[in-house]
């Protein structure tokens, strides 16, 4: 079963959020989102209200609302479930954002791997147009027009990074831009653009429908609201779970049936590895931040295999424009393979760690900056497993 516990989004009354938003003025909508304290659900955790406010204040002939449905982070699939079960709440959230910042055009950037979702999404859009929830004079509000189109991605993980996504929308290679300037000022076609995750738009709808106070009461002071988690790996019940932010990892494992885990990787390939003795740590922006992926590893798993899999992923997905990421990931992968064969000297291991640290600070975009995370945290927490390895070439 894909959906594993009670989902707040299922209980949000359709279009109540949009109706509530249209009763407020623009500043009022942004104020409500700011007051909720919501941070972006894609992983980076930028405060949504601040982003919307910047885009509202920015000058531009046109403004764009982009929904980032390029869910490529390994171990993440909650956006697929949201787009399948509650696409209306996502489009509603985009419409609310359009109203708040004065944008008339929305784009859903759907990853190529999810092409089979497109038909259902187009149907949802058509229905919303019929019901005057999209188009001109939405809900009878004169002068407020907004519509959404779907743009298909073509298979590139890096396009989940917002500036790479914009490059892709403009018909270019998905190579990240330098920031600043940020997309809220200079985004698609040089115009102010909001790029938010699928889940962020869905929660924005919920915040308008139920109020910022309701949202703020859930979670912790710095990490407000519920979060959807994609749990996979060595658990009895993999799937999508909803928890308040600030929930200990142990509790997530208990719900999914993975208490005997040796380690979890939170945040996908770009996330960090948390070993069993740290399962009291919480899923939150102030502790273990995540876009939603929780990958669980049972007692028999070799964590170097995990690091190797992740680095193969990054070598393949690095866009290649900056050196630390393009070459660094290849070197880390070679290093992990050397470690696996039991051929890595202490000095080499030290150099690999230094390389990882360099990649964190010197890479141009989030992909390169976060690509050594899993490797470094695995080396840190499972160090004892590594030097004791017997070279595989030696016969027993």
């Amino acid at each position: 079963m894909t959906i594993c516990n009670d989902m707040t989004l299922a209980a949000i009354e359709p279009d109540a959020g949009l109706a509530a938003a249209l009763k407020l003025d623009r500043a009022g909508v942004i104020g409500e989102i700011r007051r909720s304290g919501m941070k972006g659900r894609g992983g980076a955790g930028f405060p949504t209200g601040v982003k919307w406010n910047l885009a509202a204040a920015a000058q531009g002939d046109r403004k764009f609302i982009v929904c980032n449905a390029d869910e490529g982070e390994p171990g993440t699939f909650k956006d697929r479930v949201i787009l399948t079960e509650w696409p209306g709440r996502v489009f509603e959230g985009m419409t609310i954002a359009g109203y708040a910042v004065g944008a008339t055009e929305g784009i859903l950037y759907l990853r190529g791997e999810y092409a089979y979702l497109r038909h259902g999404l187009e149907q949802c859009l058509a229905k919303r147009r019929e019901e005057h929830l999209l188009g001109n004079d939405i809900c009878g509000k004169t002068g407020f027009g907004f519509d959404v189109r779907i743009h298909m991605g073509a298979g590139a993980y890096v396009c989940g990074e917002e500036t790479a996504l914009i490059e892709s929308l403009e018909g270019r290679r998905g190579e990240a831009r330098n920031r600043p300037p940020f997309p809220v000022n200079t985004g698609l076609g040089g115009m102010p653009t909001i790029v938010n995750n699928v889940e962020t738009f869905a929660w924005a709808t919920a915040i308008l429908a139920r109020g910022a106070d309701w949202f703020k009461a859930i979670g912790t002071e710095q990490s407000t609201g519920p979060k959807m988690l994609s749990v996979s790996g060595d658990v009895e019940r993999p799937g999508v779970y909803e928890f308040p932010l600030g929930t200990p990892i142990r509790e997530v494992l208990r719900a999914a049936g993975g208490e005997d885990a040796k380690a979890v990787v939170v945040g996908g390939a770009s996330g960090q590895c948390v070993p069993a003795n740290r399962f009291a740590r919480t899923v939150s922006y102030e502790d273990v931040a995540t876009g939603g992926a929780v990958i669980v590893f049972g007692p028999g798993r070799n964590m170097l295999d995990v690091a190797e899999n992740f680095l193969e992923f990054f070598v393949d997905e690095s866009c290649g424009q900056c050196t630390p990421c393009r070459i660094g990931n290849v070197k880390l992968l070679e290093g992990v393979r050397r470690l696996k064969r039991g051929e890595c000297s202490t000095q080499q291991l030290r150099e690999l760690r230094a390389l990882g640290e360099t990649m964190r600070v010197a890479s141009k975009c989030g992909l390169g900056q976060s690509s050594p995370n899993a490797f470094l945290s695995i080396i840190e927490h499972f160090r004892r497993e590594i030097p004791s390895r017997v070279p595989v070439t030696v016969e027993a």
Partner: protein
Amino acid sequence: MLSTQQEQRVAEIDAIIERHGRSRSALIPILQDVQRRHDAIGDFAMQAIADRLGIHPVEVYGVVTFYAFLNEDCRGRFVIRLCRTISCDLAGRDAVANQLRNDLGIEFGGTTADGRFTLEWANCIGMCDQGPALLVNDQVFTHVTPEKVHDILSACTRAFGLHGAQEVQVR
């Protein structure tokens, strides 16, 4: 009047471009449609598209080679992409990969001699809770086992006999 195959191709590309508009931002949707029509985006198509959008063909080439789902060379009627990322790996990806190799008689990255199947790796396709997972063109298959590989391939073969790339029905 008879027209050459190239003229026909250009006419098809023109029709696709008219549908999307002659702007750079339409490039990827145009390329996706050209690929759907012609199975690949060859040099000739890249040049024609570049001419019409007023950009250098290298710009088009750069885009085609950047994205995993855009191809210069012809692929099989059914492109099978097996997810190789961590959760599918834990769930038994290697056994499925091996069965695909054995049943198709090709390696990953290859196309069968009859042009029916291309076998590729995919990075995470977002089916981590239901792995091992694979895509056949746009269609997703989950909880794939080595036994199920045979069913998927024979369903493709049956569909091929009818109308080429239509929806694949697995019993």
